[in-house]
């Protein structure tokens, strides 16, 4: 009898400890960062190497980098997922080869992506330190996540739909456009948001691809600094930058929290709908 109670006690203890630690961390960031947060902080450019001023151009750069990443990875990822689930038979060697490549890509550390991005986008393609280089590197990083979530979304569409569509003489493309895509859309959007969330949190892949410059970028070919890099720079390289580092961290956490919760609630809604209609 006491053995069982011991296990229950231990597990509850673990949960309480973990909750406390995490709440503590979040609280510290909020407390230290909130004081520096203001509208001017969000729109003004950084001054004095970031010790004062704001993060306006940095937010813009981050947005541009994410845009490039998603605009590149999303269509490619969707097409690959559609091919893997709808247009490839189970035992296809091509499908197996593609899936394995994506699995391996998913495990590569972010700093290795940074090395690759530097060697390929910055040097070989001559894009230099730019938003484009950073965005394209992130696109490679985010591709596996998008493909995986899209594949899951399509696999979750009941096979009955495909059989019924076939029995009615609909072409595969018609079934895809009118039936499968609309049904899988919530899952696809949830996956897209998840990818954006992961990309926004990324630092190591951007250090050597998108550059350090913290002013407003002129174009996609210009260098730009992302929020995560700004936090890193302020805390490690700039003495006295801690305060603004915390404020920037708070901004980044809030943005990512909004993106990730939308993704999760969309995914839950879609799961719920699936269960109801099956």
């Amino acid at each position, binding site marked *: 009898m006491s053995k069982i109670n011991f296990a229950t006690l231990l597990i509850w203890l673990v949960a309480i400890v973990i909750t406390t630690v995490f709440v503590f961390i979040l609280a510290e960031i909020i407390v230290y960062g909130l004081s520096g947060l203001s509208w001017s902080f969000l729109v003004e450019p950084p001054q004095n190497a970031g010790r004062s001023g704001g993060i306006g151009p940095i937010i813009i750069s981050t947005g541009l980098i994410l845009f490039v990443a998603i605009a590149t990875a999303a269509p490619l990822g969707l097409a690959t997922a559609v091919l893997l689930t709808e247009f490839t*038979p*189970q*035992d296809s060697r091509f499908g197996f080869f593609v899936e394995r490549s994506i699995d391996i890509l998913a495990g590569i550390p972010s700093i290795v992506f940074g090395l690759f991005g530097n060697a390929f986008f910055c040097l070989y393609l001559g894009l230099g330190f730019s938003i484009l280089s950073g965005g394209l590197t992130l696109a490679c990083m985010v591709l596996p996540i998008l493909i995986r979530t899209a594949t899951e979304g399509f696999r979750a569409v*009941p096979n*009955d*739909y*495909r*059989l*019924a*569509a*076939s*029995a*009615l*003489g*609909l*072409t595969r493309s*018609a079934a895809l456009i*009118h*039936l499968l895509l*609309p*049904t899988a859309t919530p899952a696809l959007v949830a996956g897209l948001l998840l990818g954006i969330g992961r990309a926004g949190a990324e630092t190591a892949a951007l250090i050597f691809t998108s550059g350090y410059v913290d002013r407003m970028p002129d174009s996609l070919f210009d260098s730009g600094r992302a929020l995560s890099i700004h936090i890193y720079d302020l805390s490690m390289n700039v003495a006295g930058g801690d305060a603004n580092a915390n404020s920037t961290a708070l901004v980044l956490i809030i943005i990512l929290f909004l993106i990730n919760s939308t993704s999760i609630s969309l995914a839950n809604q879609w799961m719920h709908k699936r269960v109801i*209609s099956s």
Partner: protein
Amino acid sequence: MNPLLLESESIAHKTSNNSYTLGPMQAGTPCCKPSTLLSIENLSLYYGNKPALENVSLDIYQGCITALIGPSGCGKTSFLSALNRLTDMIPDCTVTGNIHYKGIDLHDPTIELLKLRKEIGMIFQKPVPFPLSIRRNIELPLQEHGISKQSELSSIVQQVLLDVGLWEEVKNRLDSSALDLSGGQQQRICIARALALKPKVLLMDEPCSALDPISSAVVEDLIKRLQGSYTIVIVTHNLAQAKRIANYAGFFWVKETAGCLIEFGQCKQIFESPTHELTAAYVNGCRG
């Protein structure tokens, strides 16, 4: 002239006094022997190396309801899937033998599958309405098969919904989701959707088994009304249902793990004076 293209309208679509366009009801008892629409010879079906069906030969007659009876696992659903080549979509499935539809070999590689499936429609056991509005469910296949005029689409939608007896129930909510309907209504939408393509043959895989008794009765009534204008092949576990509606019946059983056809003939003969002892045992409830 490709015989798979539409022929001129059959008698059934002439409007009569009642709002249904299917003409007066005909009794489901044996009739004279009409012409063969589908002829199946030595059909065998394998999943991988395992045989699911061996050497089935029978004829499907035009305008009649042919019931396929027998216990589970005898290959009846597999047989049905072979008739509109839905077996192509099942991984690792091989079909051997001859199936001739209006004299044309179904396995001829020059056949246009999409046109074939317009002429041979299928209704599944579990109602599968698309997650679209009622109207879109019926319009989508029509649009994909080339009908684009809105007026034509609307009139076909109304006609088939009348035919299946759903028009009064849904005419005010054609744009609401088909998933909101009851099981029996959903199955009738699926039938309406198939009828909209003006098929010659309807393959039905236990269309009533997933429905409650009342919906089941409504769908069964509908199937009876379709007789004469459509050729129907229906798989059913419900012997009483088969007795009620079928003209012809084929009895399937399992021999050494593969399904096979034991006996085929007019429905009255199968139930009242079967020639094979297994058939007699099954229809009298002694086995299966």
